[in-house]
């Protein structure tokens, strides 16, 4: 029973972190149809910024993530401008755009290697080694703090997209670009803002990543498959769907690790993904 409940709790903590990594991709890939394969690379950049400010000035990792988010927003907006001018405007966004983001990913990795080397980087904070024990359920703060921050960030993004004018405009640009244009809004500016917002989330996700474990420049590649799978399973752009998909993936991985054997975890998790898509081709919360 202990193992069963702890497996669920661990899975939920892990799933919330996966949601933090995938929420930005749910906007870019799910809603804007931009295959930003470099998304996890920006998460790693977020981790490096957290490491620099934590090791040099002792700043709290979460605080660094929040402080870096606005800077990431502007970087994202600028990146979208380049992407728009080079590919989207000329209608070459599908294949050339994918190649562009592949290139961005490699450039980001190489810059990190050249500037900071290839050693593993970690952060320290007083609470990271602590454990919160509630009955027989153990909550390592190394995973619980990322869970709280990830949940807050994902909820904030969801509320923003569903309750504010700009948020709804982002959803609208995904559905019908022409209609939005007829309403007097500039779809390019809306998409630029949305892309900036998506990249801003990677700053916080990066700070969470380095709290959980050590980071090196190419670590982002590990999360490409997972993040895209979560977005697809969630229903391409639905934030609640993405959260449920992330939790499903986290809990499945944790369960299989606890009861069957960890090497089965990805196979079972992605098997669940395939089964779900077979039953609901548009994903959990997708528009049919």
């Amino acid at each position, binding site marked *: 029973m202990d193992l069963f409940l702890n497996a669920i709790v661990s899975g939920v903590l892990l799933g919330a972190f996966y949601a933090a990594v995938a929420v930005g991709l749910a906007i870019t890939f799910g809603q804007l149809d931009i295959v930003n394969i470099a998304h996890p690379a920006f998460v790693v950049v977020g981790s490096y910024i957290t490491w620099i400010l934590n090791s040099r000035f002792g700043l709290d990792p979460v605080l660094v993530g929040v402080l870096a988010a606005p800077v990431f927003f502007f970087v994202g907006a600028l990146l979208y401008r380049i992407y728009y001018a080079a590919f989207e405007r000329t209608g070459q966004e599908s294949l050339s755009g994918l190649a562009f983001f592949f290139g961005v990913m490699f450039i980001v990795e190489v810059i990190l290697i050249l500037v900071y080397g*290839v050693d*593993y980087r970690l*952060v320290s904070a007083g609470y990271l080694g602590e454990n919160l024990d509630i009955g027989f359920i153990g909550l390592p703060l190394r995973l619980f703090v990322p869970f709280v921050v990830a949940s807050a960030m994902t909820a904030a993004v969801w509320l923003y997209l569903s309750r504010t004018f700009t948020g709804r405009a982002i959803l609208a640009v995904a559905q019908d670009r022409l209609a939005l244009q007829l309403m007097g809004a500039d779809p390019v500016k809306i998409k630029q803002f949305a892309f900036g917002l998506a990249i801003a989330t990677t700053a916080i996700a990066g700070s969470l990543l380095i709290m959980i474990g050590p980071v090196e420049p190419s670590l982002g590649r590990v999360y490409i498959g997972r993040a895209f799978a979560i977005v697809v399973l969630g229903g391409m752009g639905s934030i609640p769907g993405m959260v449920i998909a992330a939790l499903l993936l986290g809990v499945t991985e944790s369960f299989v690790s606890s009861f069957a*054997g960890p090497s089965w975890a990805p196979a079972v998790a992605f098997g669940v993904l395939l089964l779900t898509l077979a039953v609901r081709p548009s994903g959990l919360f997708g528009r049919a």
Partner: protein
Amino acid sequence: MVNRRSFARAFAAAGALAFAAGALVPAAAHAQKPLKIGFSMALTGGLAGAGKAALIAMEIWREDINKKGGLLGRQVEFVYYDDATQPAKVPPIYSKLIDVDKVDLVVSSYGTNEIAPAMPIVMRKKLVFPSLFGLAVNDEFKYNRYFQIMPAGPEPKVDWSRGYFELAMEQNPKPKTVAIVAADAEFPINAATGARKNAQAKGLKIVYDKTYPPATTDFTPIVRAIEATSPDIVYVASYPPDSVGMVKAANEVGLKAKMFGGGMVGLQFAAIQKNLGPLLNNVVNYDFWVPEPTLKFPGVNEFLAKYRVAAKDKGVDPFGHYLPPFAYAYLQVLEQSVNAVKSLDQDKLAQHMHKTTFQTVVGEVKFGSNGEWARSRVLFVQFRDVQKDNLDQFAGPGKRIVLYPKNWKSGDIVYPYRK
């Protein structure tokens, strides 16, 4: 006054001189032609941390040898390419090194997965192949010119964990059960295979024996599943990020095993040691060289002093205890062999390497018939009195006590792991 005849004579003399000089220059250049050593190295990708540190050590050797006048009177030059930690890139790199760059000697990249793909190319050309940290690569190839500098021993898979199990069985009461967990990758699976054999040979009951995928983020479910089987000892074969996850999860879950560790790669690196700090205390893990008084081999401290200067601000391990001395030593083996046989004849070099005991910065090196060390020197060290957030504590002795083998022992085990 210069007349036509004297001008013609002077012109002819100048021409002859120029011709002679032209003939002499290539001859002189030939004598000075550098001796090229070729290799691939993981300078980007997952193993780049170790690959870059190895390259720094190799460059120190090159500087040292060139100051001494080079090899066979020729200055030594490296020709190397980044294999990006991708085994598929290794065979074309060695083909190019041998056929296009025409290197005189080859040595290996770092790691099992990068050494194995080079073997067929090197074997076809019958070259001696000093290799850097591959586990049991030659078990399959059985190549008689392969020489492994990692001191795993004649039976690499079993020797790798033998000390861990021998230490465990010396304790009172003797442990009865073991959990074995390994990453789903070639090296950890080889290590786990050896651990299984050792456990069975010692009569230990294996209560948990599973692998996990290398991209695992959270290790607490794995450690909880291990804890649920209540093993007396736990043997872990893991790569650096997983090792960190495992140690943290073991502390968070409160793993009650009496011995924990074994084959965790990464716990030898200063950055990880600093971050894990006191969580490492009493973990027993493999190592190859630590700054304990029993392991002060001639030249090792001088080498490490040079390494520390060269490694500064390069984003690699600042102390370089784990891999760099061996990256220096495998070139010392090559150097001593070339100097002894006074040629680059691959057959003579191989014969010399088989029969000689080499004096290197990692101590005496003697290869067995399969190219592994004739006697294993896999150390098992125990982390002790590790303080929080202190990198410098790992520079000197006292933090990683050598428990095994007895010849190099610097202290006694603290058992059980968690009191």
